[in-house]
């Protein structure tokens, strides 16, 4: 996973509430079995409208997306994070994000910054008004700044921050607990009342004992 430290980039204002993952990447692109190549399909339906923000040449190459409340709600499709990342976005700033999207973004090196609604509205307005409006997002300092005097701190879960700074694959992190996992699992397999196939689970337990 690509690590994230500090990013200075143009910002695209997407002043819409409840942007759902069906809009970020419509269903017809979910049939592919690859993990890459989704950038062309990002906001596919909305991009059919020439007035849509991403079609504005001023915002070409922007790596920061500004959005309104509850960004990424709906479907769990990680394709939404893949599409944002593949298109070139490394950071989304909004007043709130949906839970599953939050997790998916983190696993793809995308930093989600939560700022109060009035601050995000100010940034949205500035990005809409001034050409080439640029922001600097520092994960090390946990700040968002522009060149017009805006500066705000943000909070982030310390573990999420650590993983992003280091670009860590968390399967490896979980496997640091392999011994605890083995021990837990041996005991837990006895609880047949929470096994999907209780008889298969018992068998594997007996096999383990033998």
């Amino acid at each position, binding site marked *: 996973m690509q690590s994230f430290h500090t990013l200075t980039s143009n910002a695209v204002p997407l002043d819409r509430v409840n942007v759902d993952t069906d809009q970020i990447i419509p269903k017809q692109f979910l049939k592919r079995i690859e993990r890459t190549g989704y950038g062309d399909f990002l906001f596919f339906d909305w991009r059919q409208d020439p007035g849509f923000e991403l079609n504005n040449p001023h915002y070409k190459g922007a790596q920061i997306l500004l959005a309104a409340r509850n960004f990424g709600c709906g479907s*769990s499709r990680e394709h939404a994070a893949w599409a944002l990342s593949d298109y070139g976005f490394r950071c989304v700033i909004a007043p709130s994000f949906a839970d599953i999207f939050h997790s998916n973004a983190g696993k793809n090196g995308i930093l989600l910054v939560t700022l109060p609604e009035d601050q995000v509205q100010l940034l949205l307005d500035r990005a809409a008004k001034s050409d080439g409006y640029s922001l600097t997002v520092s994960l090390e300092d946990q700040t968002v700044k522009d060149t017009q005097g805006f500066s705000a701190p943000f909070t982030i879960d310390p573990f999420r921050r650590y993983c992003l700074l280091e670009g860590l694959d968390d399967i490896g992190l*979980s496997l640091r607990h392999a011994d*605890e996992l083995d021990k837990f699992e041996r005991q837990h397999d006895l609880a047949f009342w*929470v096994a999907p196939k209780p008889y298969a689970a018992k068998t594997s337990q007996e096999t383990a004992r033998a």
Partner: protein
Amino acid sequence: MAASPKTLFEKVWESHLVAEPANEPALLYVDLHLVHEVTSPQAFEGLRLAGRKLRRPDRTVATIDHNVPTTLDGRVHIQDAIAAKQIDTLRKNCADFGVTLYDIQSAEQGIVHVIGPELGLTKPGMTIVCGDSHTSTHGAFGALAFGIGTSEVEHVMATQCLPQSKPKTFRIAVEGELPESVTAKDVALGIIGRIGTDGATGCVIEYAGSVIRSLSMEGRMTVCNMSIEAGARAGMIAPDDTTFAYLKDREFSPKVEDWDKAVAEWRKLASDPGAKFDRELVIPAIELAPFVTWGTSPGMVIPVTDVIPNPAVTKSDADRRGFERALEYMALTPGTPIEEITIDRVFIGSCTNSRIEDLRAAAKVVVGHRVHSKVRAMVVPGSQKVKAQAESEGLDQIFRAAGFEWREPGCSMCLGMNPDILSPGERCASTSNRNFEGRQGRGGRTHLVSPMMAAAAAITGHFTDVRTWEFRKEEVLV
């Protein structure tokens, strides 16, 4: 000293903690991993690339639901080459990694959230995940069940656990008695309308109260299914005699000698008296009605007897713009009575409302009536077992005689990943869970309703208050 009272969620959470490293999310064990064709190929590929094994094939179960066509011919020779490849990829992955697959021709095939409970794979007290946000459905059994992304799918495949931050708890009690013809779907829509689509973000909801207790398992699944539409991580309902009666004698339920022990364990799960929740809300059942969504977010919902609201009611500028955009997309004008809105299509199906009870409720409305001449209506049972059960009860005959199409199981028109889609501009009364722009087909207009409301709209051609419905006993042959 007595242990402090615990919630249902806390009991399930604590019994699945593998590790609690300092300053990191907890490592939570996963009892059941459900897999389907759309969100798994990249995860299996990730395992291969990293040289990792699937840790517990016996705790992993797959089916094919999202892409599968719902006509008999269409399923044998899938025309969409990309969908066919995705389905074949799942078959190969399941064969390579030793995963049980309920394939298209299997008598157990169906929507993943319908077959899990139906087979008895889903049980109280379990942790269940799937690369699908409607995994919350399984919480109806008192399981902690939630949707995950594909990286997490790979993580579970490799480790059978997931790093998870502990969510907050939110108790929603629906008290009183449901008015006539007001259903579990209306409970779900009413809650979302009340708290908003981000009203439960970061929370696990526990649904409680006399209304929830009185619901069947099918109804409870409908309510838990739509937890994600309120932003919740999961929804749960304490297991009780209704739960145990549903589970008894299912294929993977504990058998004779183990059954009583399992039930005794499951009975311990209910939230203890005095257990503390981070948030609580009580909704009187009397406030609920047959609901219809009018916009492009499930929170844009009103009773069938209301009129399309005015954007002036919104709280912020951003909300007002979203509201106006939704009105424009849906081609609706403030002040229009919901009952005057005519429809082109009706879809009865999806992981929200495709179970036997849903089909019975819809059939009760349909008996003796005919689908309106301008409406195309379809019923898509959630699984092969639901379909067979409905056919044994003659429900298919009621639907067919009325002019409904009777289809093969799958996700169908809920998300338009298969041939069942709306054409641009078509308006649909749908029993599914999302009315997002383009969800059922680009330019399609979705109104979410209960199965009874969908059935009534199919017959009159416009939204109709099912509380005033003329129920007929016999089929009237025209």
